[in-house]
């Protein structure tokens, strides 16, 4: 089989499109991890519930797109806040494995809620992105992939700027570095915890809307989170830049492997990369190496 150059380019671009959504979800994960040191296994399901809430507003209540997106984001923020207050905060002093298990339980609850309200059938989101395919040179890119890539990039650019300059972003980074010190200079640490979960839920919901508009929504779309998990581990759990680079890389790799070796090799390839990275650099490519003392 001769592999044509244009084929490689198109596959790469499509892969980068998916990769940008993985990176966006990865950033949501990293925000939570940085602030609360919680490994949130339910990030894929938070993305899913965002997509379904959007479906409820745009298809169920037939709201126009400019109203249903903000409404979805507000609802997602509320869900994130409620999760943090009821399930995460009581356990923050316990060992990380229990909190991790709580997020596994949360996975099951969110899937159950979605199936109870919307049933387990896959659905399509209403079309809202422009339909015209995008041509980059000779390469043909499906419009949804191109526009979701642009939106994801814009959101990530905004997030990175915000964390670098805005007071809330600095408070979050201070809390991530040292909770006690942040508290003693007057940062409202519990407030930062709540805020990080709300923000992450919002970002995840946005990613969910984009993922859903490309591939449709179903109660199983939380599996997307599995790839995101690989992304954040490869990038380093507490590095936004790492999530970004690893997201694009894993998305590209999955597309290439899926196109040229076959779909069943996708998970094998990503998880092999994961194992290699874990063995060579246990804290990911850009993660902070924790020092252990007795």
């Amino acid at each position: 089989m001769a592999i044509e150059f244009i084929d490689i380019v198109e596959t790469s671009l499509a892969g980068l499109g998916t990769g940008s959504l993985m990176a966006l979800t990865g950033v949501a994960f990293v925000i939570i991890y940085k602030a609360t040191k919680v490994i949130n296994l339910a990030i894929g399901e938070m993305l899913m519930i965002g997509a379904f809430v959007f479906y409820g507003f745009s298809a169920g209540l037939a709201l126009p797109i400019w109203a249903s997106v903000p409404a979805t984001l507000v609802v997602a923020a509320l869900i994130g806040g409620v999760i943090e207050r009821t399930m995460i905060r009581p356990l923050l002093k316990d060992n990380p494995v229990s909190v991790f298990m709580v997020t596994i339980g949360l996975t099951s609850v969110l899937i159950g809620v979605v199936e109870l309200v919307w049933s387990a059938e896959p659905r399509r989101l209403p079309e809202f992105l422009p339909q015209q395919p995008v041509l980059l040179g000779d390469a043909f890119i499906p419009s949804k992939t191109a526009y979701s890539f642009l939106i994801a990039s814009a959101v990530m650019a905004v997030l990175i700027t915000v964390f670098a300059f805005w007071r809330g972003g600095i408070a979050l980074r201070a809390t991530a570095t040292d909770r006690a010190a942040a508290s003693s200079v007057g940062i409202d640490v519990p407030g930062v915890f709540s805020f990080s979960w709300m923000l992450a839920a919002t970002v995840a919901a946005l990613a969910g809307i984009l993922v859903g508009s490309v591939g449709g929504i179903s109660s199983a779309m939380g599996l997307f989170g599995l790839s995101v998990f690989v992304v954040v581990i490869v990038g380093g759990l507490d590095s936004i830049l790492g999530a970004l680079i690893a997201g694009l890389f894993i998305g590209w790799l999955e597309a290439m492997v899926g196109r040229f070796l076959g779909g069943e090799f996708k998970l094998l390839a990503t998880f092999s990369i994961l194992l290699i990275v874990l063995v060579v650099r246990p804290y990911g490519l850009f993660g902070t190496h924790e020092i252990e003392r007795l």
Partner: protein
Amino acid sequence: MRVATAKESYAADQGLFKTDTQKVWFGLLLAALVLFPLHGSNYWMFLAVLVMINIISTTGLNILTGYTGQVSLGHAAFMAVGAYTVAFFDGRFDTPVLLNLVLAGAVAAFIGYLVGLPSLRIKGLYLAIATLAASVILGFIFLNWTPVTGGLRGLNVPTATIAGIELATPDRLYWLVMPITVIMVLAAKNLFRTRVGRAFIAIRDRDISAEIIGISLLKYKLTSFAISSFYAGVAGGLWAYLFRVVTPESFPALASIFFLAAVIVGGAGTIIGGIFGAVFMTLIPEFLKLAATAVVPWFPDAPIYLAPVRAIIFGLLIIGFLIFEPMGLAEMWRRTRRYFALWPFRT
């Protein structure tokens, strides 16, 4: 009222059963296990066998996660290794049942040993994800190594036959599964009276300190992985004899989470906790099914909503236990025992 449990030797204090009361209760439990099939219907026998298989597997994961502190999200994959081993040897070479089960345990233990290799460099949640990665790769092998695993269609498992008697139905299989369960649970209990078991606990409590006092982390972490996988392999082998077919979908990643949840709900780091957890997690779905059929006269749609409601209750149970009773059912059991031991004094 029990006044005291004074012991005259260390051996007595370390005994498997510390009081005569415990011996009596254990005898009663054994009698109940022997007499249970007299009463049980086929459905209850099936449940009993399934519960016991899950007890073996949960006890195995408890050795690794509860006692050694290595969180694993790949336990179900080791069960699958055991199930495939049994299906392969019994189907291909018609080897004796007990040999197959030992082989299932041994092969799973070897794979578990390999999966445990990264545990020296990575720990905690990174290790959990590494085991998840290992289980994905194992799943890929089950699906694509068609000559041995039968690919997508999987393998059929012959009826377990011991001394010419076919153990085709759950009530016969019970006599194979029940003794194995009792032996393996007692063996696990015994393990923590030995040097190896104490080393596991030391590693869980503080691995760096354990290394300083001369415990070889590499050796004992890998031993823990191997023993835990051995349990999973035997449980998987018995599972294959119960369901008689093994496919790549038999042990999804969700099943690993099921066993981790059983360990936590039951009480990590106690043998009785593993038993409680397995019984509880296996029977809860059955009770929900019963409840759903019971409310049908009032809510005709109840069975449709059964699956999502089950998922929600499953999740809420895990969350609830972690928030309100982090030590699990074993802690409730301990409190109950304490109450009766100290009666009439308040605790």
